[in-house]
């Protein structure tokens, strides 16, 4: 393959044995089943990718395109990314930390989750490799993103989801005209079926045979954090974990920018967050193990409900190497986390965001993230998609007739009972 055909990529490389493979739609090493990862030509990238060249480009994730695995110009999801990094002073005070930032992928374009990052990469690469049909196994957000981005690119899409997903996530896939197939089982079973289907049908399964390309898209969240912080790496980053892939890729984004001299070398800690109802990775981290035991998930954080996380082993290694910690929170603590973020910062995150906030709160209280330090929370999805999880827990509307007298009576009663009564809390 010539340089123009493969951009700044060199090969696919096994994370276990280092064997190299052509840049095709394949994700597993034939010799040890190790996951394949994209290897880049960093020497060439160093010559063209600088702070100046990045800043001269449009504000989307493709401003870092030399470090993303497409050969030519991206064709799918060209407006994805560059979501706000908010300085969260009110939440910082509530959690008891000096400086806190929220990376808000709840407003990522076009489907309101960080998955638009991985999907724009996976689909752009699928088009380069000549696929006409794309597919995925999903807990919801990925399905939404594959459906929407495939529609805009004129690709046929099949998405496979657990049959009991939140209604918001189901409708958010159907509306784009994708074939949505509900599997009577949990996500791990959906994924197993998809692994078998991917072995039979010549489709680009974004998180199966396209996984090496797909996963790299997550790095853009980390690149943006560094640029938006003024070209520096945060001391602490808290990331929610399903398969654990996002956590490992944020780490990789910090490594790559350091290696290329785009940010100064510094030390960082990456902390992993899970729900107690599905905590294979944090349970292993807390026990000091470098392997995890698979689980059958039972949590309201359905987007994180993966009982056999593919990158769990690598996520554990990143936490260990950077000195980070893992912890998990109950369903009630997740709802509390969602409310805290909403009330303090005006950001409505889905359940996974509640997990991140809840775990950050715990780690700060334990002193694992010191009170005088600075941290970034990665918020990965939008609360409008998981309304079912918080309905009935966030207060109620107060109804009155269209009468000024009734309104004034209501206000008077609030003043008597305190402002909290307004929200029914």
């Amino acid at each position, binding site marked *: 393959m010539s340089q123009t055909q493969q951009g700044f990529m060199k090969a696919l490389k096994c994370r*276990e044995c280092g064997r190299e493979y052509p840049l095709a739609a394949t994700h597993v090493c034939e*010799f040890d089943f190790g996951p394949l990862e994209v290897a880049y030509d960093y020497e060439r990238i160093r010559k063209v990718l600088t702070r100046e060249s990045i800043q001269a480009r449009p504000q989307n994730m493709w401003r870092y395109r030399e470090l993303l695995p497409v050969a030519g110009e991206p064709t799918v999801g060209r407006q994805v990314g560059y979501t706000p990094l908010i300085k969260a002073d009110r939440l910082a005070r509530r959690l008891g930390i000096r400086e806190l930032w929220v990376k808000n992928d709840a407003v990522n374009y076009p489907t309101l989750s960080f998955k638009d990052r991985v999907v724009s990469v996976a689909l752009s690469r699928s088009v380069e490799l000549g696929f006409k049909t794309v597919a995925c196994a999903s807990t919801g957000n990925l399905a939404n993103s594959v459906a929407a981005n495939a529609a805009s690119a004129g690709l046929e899409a099949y998405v496979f989801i657990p049959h009991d997903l939140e209604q918001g996530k189901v409708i958010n896939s159907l509306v784009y005209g994708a074939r949505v197939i509900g599997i009577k089982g949990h996500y791990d*079973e959906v994924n*197993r079926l998809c*692994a078998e289907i991917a072995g039979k049908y010549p489709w680009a399964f974004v998180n199966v045979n396209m996984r090496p390309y*797909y*996963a790299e898209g997550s790095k853009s969240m980390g690149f943006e954090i560094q640029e938006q912080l003024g070209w520096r790496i945060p001391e602490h980053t808290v990331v929610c974990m399903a398969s654990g*892939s996002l956590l490992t890729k944020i780490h990789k984004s910090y490594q790559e920018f350091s290696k290329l001299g785009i940010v100064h070398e510094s030390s960082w800690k990456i902390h992993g967050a899970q729900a107690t109802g599905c905590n294979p990775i944090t349970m292993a981290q807390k026990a000091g193990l470098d392997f995890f035991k698979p689980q*059958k998930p039972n949590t309201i954080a359905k987007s994180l409900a993966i009982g*056999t996380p593919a990158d769990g082993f690598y996520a554990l290694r990143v936490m260990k190497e950077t000195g980070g910690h893992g912890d998990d929170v109950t369903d009630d603590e997740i709802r509390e986390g969602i409310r805290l973020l909403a009330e303090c910062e005006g950001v409505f995150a889905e359940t996974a965001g509640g997990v991140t906030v809840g775990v950050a709160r715990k780690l700060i209280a334990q002193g694992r993230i010191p009170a005088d330090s600075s941290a970034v929370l990665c918020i990965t999805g939008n609360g409008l998609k998981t309304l079912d999880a918080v309905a009935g827990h966030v207060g109620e509307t107060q109804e009155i007739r269209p009468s000024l007298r009734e309104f004034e009576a209501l206000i008077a009663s609030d003043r008597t009972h305190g402002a909290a009564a307004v929200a029914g809390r």
Partner: protein
Amino acid sequence: MARLRSPDADPTRFYLDRIRAMSVRVTIPPTLRRLCGGEDQLRVQPGTVSDLLVQLQQRYNGVRERLCDEQGQIRGSVLVFVNDEDIRFLRHQQTELRPGDEVSIIPAFAGG
């Protein structure tokens, strides 16, 4: 099913059905198909998952080292399901394989 058929009517079909009912069906992942003569499904004798690995190795040299580490344990990157259940929820490599059972070998999967 085979039970209703007499061997005299169609002996090939009769014995094939008998073999199917008595053996364990294994789905081979694309990654291993080249090594397994291009087959996507194989039939093996009942036993345990460990016995299955021995049988595969006898038929296709090299399969075992791809699925297992130096200690003979199935790699973390490999998932084995018996009748749709992960063997790590059963008895790991000691999980019993009975006639008619279905085994799937697949690479560990990523998030969604």
